[in-house]
């Protein structure tokens, strides 16, 4: 397990002497969070602030005939009521699919779709006023499954050209049919991946305020201040320079705050209308309704293998249950296939993915966006093949390794690649060779591998501008100020910037002040999504820091009559490389530099490579990343054959993050990813009640009812594992530096989630011979599998093997 964090946040232990990068330090803002001093959006309160609430639809699918707000407006304490007609402009985080309105103006598309908002003197009055908003509905049949939506002539979005299909992608690489025909083994399987949501501890919150000069400020618990800035300007019809977006500390996001939501638009417009600050805080239920979580996938996979285990062809077909809006769905649909062609060589590859609108909360990007579901399918396929071909599953994966500096069959360039070392590490740490096949029945080991992007080569809107910018200032007190548009959502991007800058400028972590995510004060960064910040903002910060360190060294060199290259900045000192006894304080060095150059500031920016890194076909840029991370998991489980309980005893996760700038934070991301992945596999389920039929089979009349109601919209019913429910996690860092990353760093926040889930299911099979191809894993499914196994054994008139290891 990980070693402790030595000393205070500002101190670093381990690593290279004099260097901050690679040392064991904590987050620079951890102590505030630990003592409860961190100010989240809801902790902010402005003079004369009003409180807003949203009126939400009780119908999964209903046309709005008219809305009467007069009674609500008449209630004492109510200052303004707005409806969809006040902000009709359609928007979407992906500019090609603008299918959302700040408040739905024409119809509600899921239970909970917001149609009006009220600002009042208190939350209580606002809530009471919401009850007085009268909406006349024309109720429509709810389409709550992709099958129902595809079969129905009714369109959830009338303007959509393809019925209820939000996106269809079909891509072919090589001759798949020949590959399958020539295969020694074809594994064919149907896989189900259920929906789950992010459940951040901090609910979404926004405050709007327009000052006397007309500047609109929106504070929001967002992870994409820049995209929010753009969409606010579009929907409110204000020029962007009249809007300022500030992201205070965020208490978790995981992808669930990576696009604009109704509350930000509503708080902003209500603030404009009332001339007072307006706060809108989601209830916990509203966080579940906002959703944008993991898409449910229905997948059919055929994979052809040569007798030696090489993957000759993969044929994948997926249906994605998108929910009521597009969100990032265009990207999700591509990712469902585009991110699968590594770390293994595919001889040929075809995928066909269809995303469908349904009358449920919209799905979107959750940690491991779009690629966790197909990864589950392919890694279980590989496990089945390994058993059928009698090849060790780790060995089978090694034989298909794509290698470093390689190209995937769909055209993406892979730089550094530590996947083999990941496999080696989990194999060794888990005692795989000695233990696998020798565990008692009920215990099992499973392996899986995966890859993920470190940001995307292309911005989600067409742009030639840098993806990230950083501005630095040196202070004559020896302090460094960092201005960056980056969103720290708990992943540690603020600490990452401080680490790189402190390391370059020779100051301690404590000496770096990071001001982040304020569109008036900081340069643009596109946001905390696609695991992009470390690589992109990190590179921008390095450019800016090297500019300043050059100036400081030049000033010191001038004083000491030596070359700038002979000066080292470290440990709060400037010193001679060849004679460390010759040194001055960093404060003095900064002052010499300021005297020589004037006020010390610099900028750095990063943009992605655009040449020769992606496929030359429509969609060939989606999934292209400057650098790819790699992960391998081994999970050890214990299965109780009487109850069906599955207990994870251990999960070893080795992750190639290129270079761990802050190993403690990387280990935290690995452990958090493993927790989140196993949680959604075993317990969490974001699920709506099916429409149409009652439990007794009778068809209900349209009207209020069960259609599309969330089964779990509280933290009691949406079961996140407690500390008692998880096993031992072992975070193993693998470092294969990528030339495109700062100091070689790649992502660490999302990759370590993916293969935890198939490794778990492969371990369950190893333990009791039951395949869980439809997630989530439940005790009832285990018992059903064991019953089927017994029935099959009885039919075969032969006893069960003592352990299924080695059998297919």
């Amino acid at each position, binding site marked *: 397990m990980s070693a402790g964090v030595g000393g205070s946040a500002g101190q670093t232990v381990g690593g290279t002497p004099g260097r901050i990068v690679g040392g064991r330090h904590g987050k620079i803002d951890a102590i505030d969070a630990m003592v*409860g001093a*961190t100010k*989240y959006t*809801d*902790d902010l309160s402005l003079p004369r602030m009003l409180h807003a609430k949203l009126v*939400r639809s*009780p*119908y999964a699918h209903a046309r709005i005939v008219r809305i009467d707000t007069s009674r609500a407006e008449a209630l004492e304490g109510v200052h303004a009521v707005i409806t969809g007609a006040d902000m009709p402009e359609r928007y979407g985080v992906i500019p090609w699919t603008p299918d959302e309105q700040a408040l739905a103006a024409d119809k509600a598309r899921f*239970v*909970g779709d917001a149609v009006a908002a009220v600002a009042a003197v208190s*939350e*209580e009055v606002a*809530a009471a006023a919401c009850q007085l908003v009268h909406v006349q509905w024309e109720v429509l049949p709810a389409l709550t499954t992709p099958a129902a939506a595809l079969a129905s002539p009714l369109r959830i979005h009338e303007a959509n050209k393809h019925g209820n299909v939000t996106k269809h992608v079909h891509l072919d690489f090589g001759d798949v049919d020949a590959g399958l025909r020539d295969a020694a083994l074809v594994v064919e399987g149907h896989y189900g991946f259920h929906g789950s949501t992010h459940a951040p501890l*901090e*609910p979404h919150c926004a405050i709007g305020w327009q000052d006397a000069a007309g500047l609109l400020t929106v504070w929001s618990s967002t992870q994409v201040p820049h995209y929010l800035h753009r969409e606010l300007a579009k929907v409110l019809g204000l020029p962007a320079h009249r809007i300022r977006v500030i992201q205070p500390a965020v*208490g978790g996001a995981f992808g669930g705050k990576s696009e604009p939501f109704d509350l930000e638009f509503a708080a902003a417009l209500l603030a404009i209308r009332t001339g007072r600050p307006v706060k809108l*805080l*989601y*209830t*916990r*239920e509203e966080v579940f309704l906002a959703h944008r979580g993991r898409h449910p996938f229905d997948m059919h996979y055929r994979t052809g293998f040569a007798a030696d285990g090489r993957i000759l062809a993969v044929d994948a077909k997926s249906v994605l249950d998108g929910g009521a809006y597009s969100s990032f769905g265009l990207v999700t649909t591509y990712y469902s296939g585009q991110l699968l062609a590594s770390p293994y060589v595919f001889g040929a590859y075809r995928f066909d993915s269809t995303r469908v609108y349904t009358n449920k909360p919209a799905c979107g990007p959750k940690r491991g966006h779009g690629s966790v579901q197909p990864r589950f399918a392919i890694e279980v396929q590989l496990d089945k093949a390994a058993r059928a071909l009698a090849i060790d599953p780790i060995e089978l994966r090694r034989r298909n390794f794509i290698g470093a500096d390689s190209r995937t069959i769909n055209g993406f360039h892979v730089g550094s690649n530590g996947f083999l070392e990941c496999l080696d590490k989990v194999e060794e740490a888990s005692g795989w060779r000695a233990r696998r096949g020798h565990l008692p029945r009920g215990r099992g080991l499973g392996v899986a591998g995966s890859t993920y992007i470190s940001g995307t080569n292309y911005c989600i809107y067409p742009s030639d501008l840098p993806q990230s910018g950083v501005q630095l200032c040196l202070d004559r007190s020896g302090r460094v100020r960092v201005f960056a548009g980056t969103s720290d959502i708990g992943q540690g991007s603020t600490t990452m910037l401080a680490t790189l800058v402190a390391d370059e400028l020779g100051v301690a972590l404590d000496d770096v002040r990071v001001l982040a995510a304020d569109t008036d004060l900081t340069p643009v960064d596109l946001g905390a999504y696609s695991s992009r910040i470390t690589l992109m903002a990190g590179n921008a910060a390095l450019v800016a820091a090297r500019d300043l360190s050059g100036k400081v060294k030049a000033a010191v060199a001038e004083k000491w009559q030596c070359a700038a290259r002979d000066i080292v900045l470290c440990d709060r000192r400037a010193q001679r490389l060849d004679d460390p006894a010759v040194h001055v304080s960093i404060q003095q060095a900064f002052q010499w530099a300021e005297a020589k150059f004037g006020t010390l500031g610099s900028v750095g920016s990063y943009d992605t490579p655009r040449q020769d890194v992606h496929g030359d076909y429509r969609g060939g840029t989606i999934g292209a990343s400057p650098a790819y991370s790699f992960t391998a998991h081994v999970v050890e489980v214990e299965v109780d054959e*009487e*109850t*069906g309980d599955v207990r994870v005893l251990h999960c070893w996760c080795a992750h190639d993050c290129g270079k761990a700038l802050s190993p403690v934070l990387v280990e935290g991301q690995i452990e958090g990813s493993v927790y989140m992945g196993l949680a959604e596999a075993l*317990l969490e389920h974001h699920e709506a009640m099916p429409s149409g039929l*009652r*439990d*007794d089979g*009778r068809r209900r009349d349209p*009207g*209020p*009812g*069960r259609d599309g*109601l*969330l*089964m*779990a*919209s*509280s933290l*009691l*019913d949406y*079961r996140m*594992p*407690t*500390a*008692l*429910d998880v096993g031992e996690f072992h975070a193993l860092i693998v470092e294969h530096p990528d030339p495109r990353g700062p100091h070689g760093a790649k992502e660490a926040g999302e990759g370590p989630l993916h293969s935890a889930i198939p490794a778990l299911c492969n371990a369950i099979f190893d333990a009791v011979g039951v395949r869980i191809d439809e997630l989530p894993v*439940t*005790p*009832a499914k285990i*018992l059903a599998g064991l019953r089927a196994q017994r029935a099959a054994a009885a039919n075969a008139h032969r006893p069960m093997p003592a352990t299924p290891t080695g059998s297919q």
Partner: protein
Amino acid sequence: MLPPMLRLPALDVHQPANLADALALREQLGPGARWVAGGTDLLPNLKLHMVDAEHLVSLRALAELHGITVDAATGELCIGAATRLADLAADPDVLAHAPVLAFAAGRVASPQLRNMGTLGGNLCLDTRCRYINQSELWREALGGCLKSHGTECHVVPGGQGCVAALSSDTAPVLIVHGAAIDVLGPHGASRSVAVADLYDTDGLQHVRLEDGEVLVRVRVPRQPATARHAYRKWAARASIDFPLVSVALRLDLATTGLDLASATGTATLAGGQLAVGVLGPRPRVLDLGRFAGRPVDEALALELGDFAFARCHPLPNVPYDAAYRRERLAVEVRRAVRGMA
């Protein structure tokens, strides 16, 4: 950061100094008043507007509702109704005289909730159902139910009675201990009710207490040396959750003291009781007299599991697959017996 939460409706909280004042106040305030002790069940329900109250009368500070004693003559264990579950779980007298009750109290919810929740509150827990314990928006979208401004039961289509489930961890345990509660009425009228008789089958009004009556204490009789007890709770998570399956078991053995086991090493059953929770508004109590004379062994464990399976029919009233809960119930009964064999 302030915890995200729904707002409590405006209400007055009263903190009477003694029990007599509390009863008088409650009578004076009328039907708009509710008792509150730990509030861990009532306050969330108020926030969800599942129940209404204009006044809350706090029982926390009433000395008459506190204290744990053992009657030296009878061996009866007497527990104040306002005893916190955390204190109950750790109390030496309870651990000595009714260790399974302490165990069950220690399995309620989570440490924080046990630090607030009381034994009386756990016995008077409101019934729960997946169609009730939801927000106003959710219940409006559903169209209500028998317990929530509606006419249709969504658990039992066409059902006329509310089948919301009692999720108390302590009630089944107290039933198999033969425990009773002392109740005080508005004018000081006292009565005693066996815990087994406390509950009704109506999920809307499942606790047989009159408006204004207060649960003062719980009395647990001394258990004979031949009695063996067990409580088993299953929930999807190891903490926080209400039980999805709960089983309290008492086996009465035919012999006492050191001669419990026969020459074969197996005790013989004289009788016993099984109380199963989370089925409906009241625990299902099954007498085990028919198994008298049987050795307490694996065969009995399997048979009692089958017996419980045949007699109990978990409904889709609480979350989770009802068919699995029924299977799980049989397993938990088996395991309760095995723990005693």
